[in-house]
């Protein structure tokens, strides 16, 4: 695997950078119909940091975290997670990366509808085969306990409330002890109080476990739980100082 030297503009010096995104561009289409979804984005996040990515709908937030999480390949630029250059990986390597090093919490929780909360966690544990079956079961029970879902473990998603589903999705994202947790609009389907609880929980889990987290949101109220804030508008990523957040959006 190739390793490139990167020098992102917004490296935070609070700890060892685990995630580095350097001049990443994503373009759809070709020629005069080409659309640039992300234009030369750079960011760096250290271990144990929880950052938010703010932006209106269609600004490119999801595209950026999809590239960071190995769901999409950038048109140009470099994404590095620890010692691995994600942007150079093959499809198979990206599949393994997602199974082993990245935990996703998608919009609207996205759980497997015919699996119980516990089985949703156990299924992702079976993908990288990091844990024995017994160890995976123990970890799933521990996570569900921490997330306050012990008594809901054997319910399928349709028997869970929106907040419970989101917590199961967080548990699933943490199940394989990933280095990076990517969270896309975790509060979209929740009321304010529940949304706040879920983000607090996420921030706590990221901090306690020494993980790196990126949360995509357009809810300004949630940024108080994050260590740094990035804004994205029309595909252009900038680091926010907290005063000019998405003026007019």
């Amino acid at each position, binding site marked *: 695997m190739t390793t490139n030297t990167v020098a992102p503009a917004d490296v935070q010096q609070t700890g060892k950078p685990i995630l580095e995104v350097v001049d990443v561009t994503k373009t759809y289409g070709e020629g005069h119909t080409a659309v640039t979804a992300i234009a030369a984005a750079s960011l760096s996040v250290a271990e144990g940091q929880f950052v938010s990515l703010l932006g209106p709908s269609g600004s490119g937030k*999801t*595209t950026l*975290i*999809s590239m960071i*999480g190995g*769901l*999409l390949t950038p048109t140009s630029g470099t994404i590095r997670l620890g010692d691995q250059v994600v942007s150079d990986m093959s499809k*198979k390597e990206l*599949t*393994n*990366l*997602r*199974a*082993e090093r*990245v935990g*996703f919490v*998608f*919009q609207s929780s*996205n*759980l*497997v*509808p*015919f*699996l119980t909360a516990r*089985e949703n966690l156990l*299924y*992702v544990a079976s*993908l*990288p085969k990091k844990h024995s079956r017994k160890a995976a079961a123990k970890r799933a029970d521990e996570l569900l306990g921490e997330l306050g879902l012990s008594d809901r473990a054997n319910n*399928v998603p349709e028997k869970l409330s929106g907040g419970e589903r989101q917590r199961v999705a967080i548990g*699933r994202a943490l199940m394989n002890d990933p280095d990076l947790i990517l969270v*896309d609009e975790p509060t979209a389907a929740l009321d304010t109080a529940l949304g706040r609880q879920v983000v607090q929980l996420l921030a706590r889990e990221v901090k306690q476990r020494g993980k790196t987290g990126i949360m995509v949101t357009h809810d300004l109220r949630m940024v108080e739980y994050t260590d740094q804030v990035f804004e994205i508008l029309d595909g252009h990523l900038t680091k926010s100082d907290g005063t000019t957040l998405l003026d007019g959006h």
Partner: protein
Amino acid sequence: MSIALLEMRRAKLRFGLLSGAVALLVFLVLFLSTLSGALIESFTGAIKNLNADVLVYSSSARDNIQGSRLDPSVVAKVAAVPGVAAAGGIATTTTSAQLPSGKGDLALFGFDPTKPGAPDGVKEGRLPNAANETAVDVAGATIGSTITLLPTNIPLEVVGILSGAQFSAAPTAYVDLPSYQAALKAANPNAPFIPLNAVAVETTPGSDPAAVASQVANTVPGTAGYTISDAVAKIPGVSSVSQTFGILVGMTFVISIVVIGFFFLILTVQKMRVFTLLRATGASTGRLARSVVVQITAVVVVASAVAILLVWGALKGASTGIPVSLDPTLVIGTVLAVWVFSLAAGLLSIRRIRSIDPATAAGAR
């Protein structure tokens, strides 16, 4: 438990209905195959299970043993043809008889117990070797019971029970040639002689039966030679019955495969969101494809077990008039074929899974 089996456990009704539908289709395939096999066997068994390599009819017989008339002297002429190790006369007629089930038709066969032409498939007892002894393929007959030829009232003592020896869907009784001739003479006292219908030939080791059959026809005037399989295929009605049942079984088989293939394709399309999510969380295409294979296999296994029970029950309850039994080779072959072709139909689903873009789970596309 795998995700495929967990899904089946949670969607019992959906998979139960599919397994039920497939079970009915596999039942139809098995039932039709068993019936057609039994029917064809009842038409051909007596010829197919003859202890001979070649049969010789008269050239005017039009491929039909019952239309064949041969002078008994032909046996010696056939025996002299190169490639023939031994030859024995066979005679057959359809007569009325008092059977265990009542009065009915009986195909009476006369053969020489010391020569080729004896029936194979003695299930119980032995072949006849004395006057008025008989080995039979007659429903309800037991060793020691008597079958009476009508209208002559000649009693034949059953010394052997045969299986797969019916002819033209009629029960059969095998006696030695002198007994056969005596029975026919009693029924037709003015007949100048009792002709043979065929000569059964055992070929010399290493000879090609087809070549010996031609050689006999070329050497002995007025005769036509057939290998056993050729003689079976040319029994009147057999090829059309085989063809008709073949089409029925084939169509049912194809419909089963298409139903399974389409069902899993619909299921896959319905589950694209789940498959996309699983791909996004790190499940490989191969792993998802395996879940489809596991589900198809489970459905085929459950459906086949139900179908076998249904066929067994139907054969027990049905009154077909011909001996019908479930052939394990047919069952295993049919189930394996349904499974293999269902997996092939499952490729449609696997193709859809391969086309999944995991980025859509995040809504990036």
